[in-house]
């Protein structure tokens, strides 16, 4: 069946989002028709604002509406530690923890030999430049994912960091909180054993 042009256009828009096919797009489009006009306007405005007002922080490359971002600007944070993460979503995950009080650097990806993504495709050079310009930094925590790409990125950064003499650390891998040892796989267990600490 041919949809009226405005609905077809709306569906086309929804289909640009990840994981949304024609069926879901049509369901969402018809739902929008039933929404209050104010809500629709508010929704449309927030879409436009998110796109127009958000940018990458010139220092840490985290998504922000002010440059430098609020984390970089916050003088109460520990200015001597930088935590390197893959994505902006990882900053949010770290911030939820409320235990880390240092700065961040978002790479926006990871080195992936499988996908042909090299260091020049992510914000590694910017990290090195930032470290060269800021002499206060004493530690870099590499908090990339515990995947093969995350490990490759961590290896590459640690190699670049060696001549600088800045302490470089990697977040621990192992058993999740509440995890049963019996059900842990051998790779996780060996990592957990490798990173054991004295109590």
């Amino acid at each position, binding site marked *: 069946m041919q949809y009226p042009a405005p609905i077809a256009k709306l569906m086309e828009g929804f289909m640009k989002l990840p*994981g949304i096919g024609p069926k879901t797009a049509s369901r969402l489009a018809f739902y929008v028709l039933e929404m209050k006009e104010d809500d629709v306007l508010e929704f449309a405005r927030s879409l436009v604002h998110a796109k127009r007002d958000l940018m990458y922080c010139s220092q840490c490359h985290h998504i922000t509406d002010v440059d430098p971002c609020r984390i970089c600007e916050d003088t109460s944070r520990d200015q001597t530690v930088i935590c390197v993460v893959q994505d902006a979503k990882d900053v949010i995950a770290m911030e939820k923890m409320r235990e880390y009080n240092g700065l961040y650097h978002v790479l926006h990806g990871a*080195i*992936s*030999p*499988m*996908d*042909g*993504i*090299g*260091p*020049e495709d992510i914000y590694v050079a910017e990290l090195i430049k930032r470290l060269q310009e800021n002499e206060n930094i004493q530690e870099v925590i590499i908090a990339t994912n515990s*995947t*093969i790409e995350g*490990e*490759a990125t961590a*290896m*590459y950064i640690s*190699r670049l960091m060696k001549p600088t003499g800045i302490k470089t650390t990697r977040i621990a891998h192992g058993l*999740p909180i*509440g*995890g049963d040892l019996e*059900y842990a*796989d*051998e*790779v*996780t267990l*060996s990592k957990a054993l490798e990173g054991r600490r004295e109590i």
Partner: protein
Amino acid sequence: MLEKAEGIVLRTINYGESNVILTLFTREFGKVAVMARGAKKTRNRFRSVSQPFVHGIFLYYKGRGMSTLNQGDVLHSFPDIRQHIVRMSYAAYMAELLEKTVEEREKNPYLFELFLTLLEQMEFGHDPEVLTSIFETKMTLQAGIQPELTKCVCCGQTDQIVSFSVKEAGFLCKRCTDQDPYAIHLHPKTIHLLRLFLHIDVQRIGSISLQKETKEELKRVMDAYYEAYGGFALKSKRFLDQLEKWNW
């Protein structure tokens, strides 16, 4: 229907919020795509088995569409390959080359054994560049583009081989080398190695150490040959070329 296979993860693709599609190369059924549901979640049991190069036993439901992973046991995770960026890059290249040249569910236990042995040798610390050259040479047969490496491709003479012609797809002897002005002149050692690599049993090779020039010549031949006849562009190849510039 449940199917059990011994396989190696060639490639992983994130799908949806937390699922991963694994491309497995199995001993029993060749290349198989399997969906590992929830594999990106921290406590998911498929998490460790859903990493590239993992050699394991996989149990999956084979339906009409894509198979769904039911169980996975790691036999070997090749930690040294995963912790060494150069080895990882060569292993990724071999995996992608394999993935591109084999068809879905085309059983090939020889190729499975070859790939597994080369990963084991790489894990053991053997030169990844040499192992990749061996793999590339042997894979020409699988890809249906095997060059003539026993005799001169023009006159059939077996001695006095001096160059490799991409255009003629094989060796050229001293007399015929002018047939192709772009033929790559080779050191006798490289000629010997190319012949050796094609037929050598990888189970029996020890550590082969080659001079930088020899490795470069082997690479030049294979790069030019695959570029002309391979018919595919490999992302991992681009990465390998970048890696050379890093001087690791």
